[in-house]
């Protein structure tokens, strides 16, 4: 800033110190939470948790949840909820598995088809919400049951009576796309790292960590893309705007309907991506896949600083929120603590996060 502008500043305003500027970032809570959780487990858990293989252990569930949470966070910033994403994982899993096993399609067809069908369901959700003006909470709650039920019915139809569809491994064994969506990435790199002694090895010489599980890469990629869109593109500005005030946004020329529907579609696609990864990983799909994940994803987004009222939040926050999750759910197995404390932790964390977010919001808007 120029000298001149500096002198013209209001003399009653102090420059914010760094900590106060950091306090205004939506993801602050999640980062602080992650530091707390790390300190907690450094003190109580087996040191194996913080080795490379321990890291991969807790990052894998974190990434699986995170893929959902980033979609949920984007939608929440846009002012809507989607409670059907957990059921969407099961539904998309069914579609994907049926396309592979029952219709014998290659991945290059099955993956886009699954994503398109998921996006279409997301668009239906969005259309209903926008046309009826009902809260998305209710509309997607209906879809939570509809999709779960369809998954059950569809699985029985696809398998001839069972609720589990197997045989996916065989169907995709030689498909060139399989390594992109399942298993561990960069095996050669990790083999080499093991050779030079950076990565620990088993007795037979195989590295203890054979590579980075692909879901972690997808998770990081998605978080980066979502952050870029939110902060650096006009569409990001529209997302904040429709979440902040639909009326104001549409009066300013923001295509409110399109933005909201696109967000519903994106969230559904995130669920479908998770379904694809999980189904390929497990080699089967069943109707309970993604059960209650919608709540965990929303909680991760809230821990990440998303306001329940929309218009505020960050994808980075949801990223860290998901990692907190993974650390706790896996970290407890490295301690002597009963794992069932996890649920207690979940509820407490949600409550603390919501209260903390309220304080942050007041700070940002200068409300007193």
């Amino acid at each position, binding site marked *: 800033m120029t000298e001149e*502008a500096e002198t*013209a*500043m*209001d003399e009653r*305003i102090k420059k914010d110190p760094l900590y106060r500027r950091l306090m205004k970032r939506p993801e602050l809570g999640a980062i602080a939470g992650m530091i707390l959780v790390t300190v907690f487990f450094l003190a109580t858990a087996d040191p194996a948790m913080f080795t490379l293989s321990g890291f991969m252990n807790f990052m894998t569930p974190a990434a699986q949840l995170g893929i959902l949470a980033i979609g949920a966070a984007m939608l929440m910033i846009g002012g809507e909820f989607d409670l059907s994403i957990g059921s969407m994982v099961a539904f998309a899993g069914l579609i994907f598995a049926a396309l592979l096993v029952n219709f014998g399609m290659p991945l290059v067809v099955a993956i886009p088809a699954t994503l398109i069908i998921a996006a279409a369901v997301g668009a239906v959700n969005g259309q209903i919400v926008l046309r009826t003006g009902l809260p998305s909470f209710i509309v997607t709650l209906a879809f939570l049951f509809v999709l779960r039920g369809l998954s059950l019915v569809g699985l029985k139809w696809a398998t001839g009576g069972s609720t589990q569809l197997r045989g996916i491994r065989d169907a995709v064994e030689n498909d060139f796309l399989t390594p992109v969506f399942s298993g561990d990435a960069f095996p050669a790199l990790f083999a080499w790292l093991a050779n030079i002694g950076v990565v620990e090895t088993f007795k037979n010489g195989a590295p203890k960590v054979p590579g980075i599980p692909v879901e972690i890469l997808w998770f990081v990629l998605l978080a980066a893309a979502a952050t*870029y869109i939110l*902060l*650096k*593109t*006009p569409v*990001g*500005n*529209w997302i*904040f*705007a429709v979440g*902040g*005030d639909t*009326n*104001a*946004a549409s*009066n*300013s*020329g*923001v295509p409110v309907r399109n933005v909201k529907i696109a967000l519903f579609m994106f969230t559904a696609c995130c669920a479908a991506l998770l379904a694809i990864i999980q189904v390929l990983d497990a080699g089967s799909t069943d109707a309970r896949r993604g059960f209650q994940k919608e709540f965990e994803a929303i909680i991760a987004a809230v821990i990440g600083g998303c*306001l329940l009222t929309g*218009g*505020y939040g960050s994808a980075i926050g949801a990223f860290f929120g998901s990692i907190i999750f993974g650390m706790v759910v896996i970290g407890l197995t490295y301690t002597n603590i009963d794992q069932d404390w996890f649920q207690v932790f979940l509820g407490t964390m949600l409550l603390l996060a919501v209260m903390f977010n309220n304080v942050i*919001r007041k700070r*940002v*808007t*200068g*409300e007193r």
Partner: protein
Amino acid sequence: MSEPILQMNNIEKHFGNVIALAGVSFDIRPGECHCLLGDNGAGKSTFIKTMSGVHKPTSGEILFEGKPMSFDSPRDAMEAGIATVFQDLAMIPLMSVTRNFFMGREPTKGHGLFKRFDVQHANEVTMSEMKKMGINLREPDQAVGTLSGGERQTVAIARAVYFGAKVLILDEPTSALGVRQTSNVLATIAKVREQGIGVVFISHNVRHAMSVGDRFTVLNRGKTHGTAKKGEITSEELQDLMAGGQELAELEGSLGGTI
């Protein structure tokens, strides 16, 4: 005086069996502030919504720069150069001043997939436009929620001016403001007028209108009582026209002439 930019002739607007506007004529010239006065329910809101493209008139004619015009949406009117600052200001408190300023009209740089919101340019423009209106922002990424009501009003006005408004419609900009903030907004209106923009100032506060207005039109029960130039009319006369004279005179008597 120069030719009117916007002329509204004999506008009628019916909502079912309710006649909201029964033949209102109004025009606005560049560089003037035309005050539209009226009590609650007089039809002010319906009239400006017709002017800004939200409603289509049931009958009557709108001439924009001499040509007949029919706006299908507020977007159309905005593109033609008719900007409206509604009472809710179309501002989002949680978003930064810059993000609000460019909401829906973000400047971009780069191409294709890498086309992105040019935040730096947007920040610079916001700071300098706000400075022109006499407000020094602490920082462009300050949230709008931290601004005072008058400052928010000014952001909304500055935004309309920056995006090329020829006619600026202000819907009761001073109704919820304190004394100091009101004078700031009135000063802003004066600045906008100097740039050759026609300002339509809607108010039910005669004193505010008298301080910046060049012409005054009073709307009462969906009709106009004609337009008066500055100096041709006193604030008491305007007050009477707005409230329908008779009843207010009685009320005023009982209140000891304090309204």
